[in-house]
């Protein structure tokens, strides 16, 4: 797979990136007093393609809403937003990636976050989360 370049023009630092969160991969943070996504949610795909997110600026332009990312097979999952700037500060390239998608789950705002995601990096990426669609048990400690 050819290397792609970071695209700070198409996906500026000020935009937010939406990431689907597996509800089984959330834990309670006693300091924040809410459940948070574990770092395991912030990985490249098992097939080595970069981590998938949805860029808010492109989503707005195309009339997509957060709930559109949680349809079909993804119903019941949650959604967080992470600032694009946070991804870049942690060594990631961010670029629009409309081609590498399931045709049955196609979104114009589909974006790649490419780069090394070792355990330390994953943990840092996760710390930049903000809930958009939180889990039902957001405030439950167990």
């Amino acid at each position, binding site marked *: 797979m050819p290397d792609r370049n970071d695209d700070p023009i198409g996906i500026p630092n000020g935009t937010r990136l939406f990431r689907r969160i597996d509800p089984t991969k959330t834990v309670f943070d006693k300091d924040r007093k809410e459940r948070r996504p574990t770092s395991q949610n912030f990985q490249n795909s098992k097939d080595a393609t970069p981590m998938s997110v949805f860029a808010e600026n492109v989503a707005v332009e195309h009339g997509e*809403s957060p709930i559109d990312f949680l349809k079909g097979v993804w119903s019941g999952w949650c959604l967080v937003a992470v600032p694009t700037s946070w991804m870049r500060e942690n060594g990631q390239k961010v670029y629009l990636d409309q081609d590498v998608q399931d045709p049955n789950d196609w979104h114009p705002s589909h974006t790649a976050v490419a780069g090394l995601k070792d*355990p330390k990096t994953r*943990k840092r990426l996760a710390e930049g989360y903000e809930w958009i669609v939180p889990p039902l048990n957001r405030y439950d400690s167990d």
Partner: protein
Amino acid sequence: MASLVLDNIWRPRTLTDRRNDITTIKPRPSPAGLTRPEVASEMPGAIELDVESGGDRRRARFVVPSLPGPRWLKPSILHVGKLLSLPHNWDRQGAPPIDLSVIQTAMDSLSLFMSSDSSAPQWTPTQRSGVQLDWHENGVDLEIAFEPGDIVGYVVFSDRNNPGLEWDGPLGDHMDALEEILRERLVS
């Protein structure tokens, strides 16, 4: 949050703009269908769980330090039972069920550095069907991941009270530090 008005047409500036009504989204229940495991038997040095997963029922046996054991043991066993109930394709990307031997490795490791009154970890699955143990309390962010095929876990630590204080590496390289954190900072 401000909205954007151009030519008298309101446009949302962000997807969570109040006028866009996105904040009214209601989360839906997890389809994972986690069920509470049943402790089938307890015996000196071992515990057995009856676990239901995807319509199948099976018995999982773990070696544990002692019974009734330290305070963190029982909540850990309950977490483990929930993980074992995850069916094939629990991640909707073809993941196999959680590896039993990985859970045993994690349990064995915990008994090496946990104190009797250490806080119980929270157990969640990893992308490779291993387990990750998390603690987020008292300013400490601590994660230890155990993956299938790996002999030892991998630990990542940071301290919110001392920004910049963070370390990571194979579990065996940080046993003393872990023992101290779980004795001094992460206590129930």
